[in-house]
């Protein structure tokens, strides 16, 4: 050992320094391990994504979720509101494996997602006490494929005829129209041009020139939207017949208007502003009209019969579970809670939609409420807004051509032929 003392000291010091850091590292490691083991009991977080129609709805949902978190203290629910281009966002997230655990799904988008296998089948989770039979059967069917259930309908709404009772009184009309012929007649009487500038200040009825609202018009005379291979098939004379009634009202009678014709964003807004006297709308319009236009006097009747038959549309939304979810049991617990009899009851009082459980609908007496009864009755004969996975393509094509027929750019028959061909070409190529 002829090393100078100071050198060995330095070396010792270094060793010491190294060992000290090693100790510190080990300590950190142990500590973090401990943290981790403690984390096992920490609440797990699941995400619930959906859209929001109004602040009240949001508040109600928050309180239901709060009840859920009290009942299940180890589950935390993170809510996420996606209001714009909801399905685009959800699909992109599903692709990127960052989709929420539980999310809303509209019936018409369901076939595609069910087919691609990104949704968790729920059959295995459902217990007898959950009472699945209580749900409106046609709504459940919308989320079933090959005997598997992929979603639990949270609520639904049909369409019904909203009419402005003040306008009806002024036009000396006592009753809402029962048939489409009466409706056409009423619309003429309700169209008024007070300042005589040639442009009506109030139209008889509003029209939403979109397939979701018009599908029952296609079916009224025996037309069919798609064939059994999911190709479009609505260019038949029978399918065109119902739609032609609307085009005639718009072009020949000039008694119906689109929202943009009267400077409104939607039919319910135009109806609230008194620019149209009748509108075919759903339950969601009721809270909106009451809140935004408290002075408006309106009543609701069933959609008038077409070709002697009753018909309307039904829209439903379900809670579905992401197949990639890491907390499937917790996710099911949330779905179960939200769609249980109690959960649905506290949620459905808002009146934006009708509860999908028959027992809840009966308990809340929706079938005896004068405003909601026509909507509730509609459920028995409504067409659910759903078709095969090609529906989004069919819809885009239909909407484009129907509006051009409505505006008189081409006869309806030609427009529908073109829409059908365009849709089918696209379906053919994408297969």
């Amino acid at each position: 050992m002829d090393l100078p003392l100071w050198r060995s000291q330095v070396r010792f010091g270094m060793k010491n320094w190294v060992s000290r850091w090693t100790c510190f590292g080990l300590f950190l490691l142990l500590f973090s391990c401990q943290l981790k083991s403690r984390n096992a009991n920490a609440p797990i977080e699941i995400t619930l994504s959906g859209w929001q129609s109004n602040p009240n709805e949001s508040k109600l949902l928050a309180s239901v979720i709060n009840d859920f978190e009290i009942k299940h203290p180890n589950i935390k629910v993170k809510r996420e509101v996606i209001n714009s281009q909801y399905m685009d966002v959800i699909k992109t997230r599903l692709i990127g494996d960052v989709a929420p655990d539980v999310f809303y799904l509209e019936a018409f988008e369901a076939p595609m997602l069910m087919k691609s296998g990104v949704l968790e089948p729920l059959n295995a989770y459902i217990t007898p006490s959950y009472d699945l039979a209580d749900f409106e059967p046609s709504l459940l069917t919308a989320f079933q494929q090959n005997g598997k259930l992929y979603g639990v309908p949270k609520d639904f709404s049909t369409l019904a005829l909203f009419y402005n009772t003040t306008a009806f009184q002024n036009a000396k009309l006592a009753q809402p129209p029962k048939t489409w012929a009466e409706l056409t007649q009423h619309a003429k009487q309700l169209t008024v041009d007070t300042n005589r500038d040639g442009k009506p200040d109030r139209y008889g009825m509003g029209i939403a020139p979109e397939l979701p609202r018009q599908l029952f018009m296609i079916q009224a005379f025996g037309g069919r939207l798609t064939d059994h291979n999911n190709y479009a098939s609505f260019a038949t004379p029978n399918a065109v017949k119902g739609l032609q009634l609307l085009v005639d009202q718009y072009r020949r009678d000039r008694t119906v208007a689109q929202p943009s014709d009267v400077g409104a964003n939607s039919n319910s807004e135009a109806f609230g502003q008194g620019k149209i006297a009748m509108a075919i709308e759903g339950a969601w319009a009721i809270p909106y009209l009451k809140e935004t236009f408290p002075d408006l006097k309106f009543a609701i009747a069933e959609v008038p019969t077409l070709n002697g038959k009753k018909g309307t549309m039904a829209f439903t939304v379900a809670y579905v579970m992401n197949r990639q979810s890491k907390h499937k049991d917790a996710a099911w617990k949330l779905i179960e809670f939200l769609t249980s009899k109690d959960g649905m009851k506290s949620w459905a009082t808002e009146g934006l939609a009708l509860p999908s459980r028959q027992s809840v609908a009966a308990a809340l007496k929706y079938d005896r409420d004068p405003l909601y009864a026509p909507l509730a009755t509609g459920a028995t004969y409504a067409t659910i807004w759903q078709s095969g996975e090609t529906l989004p393509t069919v819809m885009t094509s239909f909407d484009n051509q129907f509006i051009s027929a409505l505006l008189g750019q081409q006869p309806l028959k030609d427009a529908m032929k073109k829409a059908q061909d365009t849709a089918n070409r696209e379906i053919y190529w994408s297969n």
Partner: protein
Amino acid sequence: MTLKSEFLKRRNIQEALSGYLFMTPTLIVLGIFLVLPVLYAIVLAFHSVNLLGEVSYRFTGLKNFMRIQGDERVAIALKNTMQYVAIVVPIQTLLALGLALALNAKIKGRSLFRVAFFLPTVTSSAVLTLIFMWIYNSNGLLNNVLSFFSLPTYNWLGDPEVALRGIMIMNIWATAPLFMVIYLAALQDVPESLYEAASIDGATGWGKFWCITLPFLRPVTFFIVVMGIIGTFQLFDQSYIFSNGSGGPNNATLTIVLLIYQYAFKNLDMGYALALTLVLALVIMTVTIIQRQFFGEERLD
């Protein structure tokens, strides 16, 4: 002699190496986020891609490109976009030049005007579109003004005949000021001595404008027209907000980029969307090359 050249060569290599070393971070970032996606896009354009659920790629050769031929929405989108470019680019260039000349003149409150003219450009296009949708409302400002002067009024948002015009007006108004600023900067660079010499030779105001100002602005004009064409070909956000993503009414506001978006994210038909993207790139390149011929080989420097 040979030794010296050898030495120089080695030094050159060394310099080049260290140069590349300095560029490495940028090269990596650009490679990953720019070159790789472009190459990937080209490759995927020849595939049928399924992303949702089971991810799968299937080579389909030229099928996606054959599909474009029969797709009437592509034809409509191309027509709309071409029409849009053909109307917007000349007007916005002329407007920008006019505004720049006006602001370059010695008028009072010049800087105030400059700020006022430039404001639309710094406003977000989403906000602008929403404001314009109010103006275009059937009972909105524009129709009120039109009816005040007894001009015909339109349903700007709902009528396919005029919906695209609405977006054109909006975009000209919003982008012209940006190009105005570029023109303005170029105008400051025109040497005063040239004008003086021209005046001595007896040139009129118009003569000076045609023979001095315009030729001097040629490279800038080239730049502005190219940028304008690229920008207008890529029109997306305004028509997206205008039509809520549908390109309606009756495909009147459907542009190529909106169509690509619809195929990619609504139909999840990535392969076909990418094939369309390549077509768009090709169209823009062709137009730029044609334009280069038109403006000559002049360069920006």
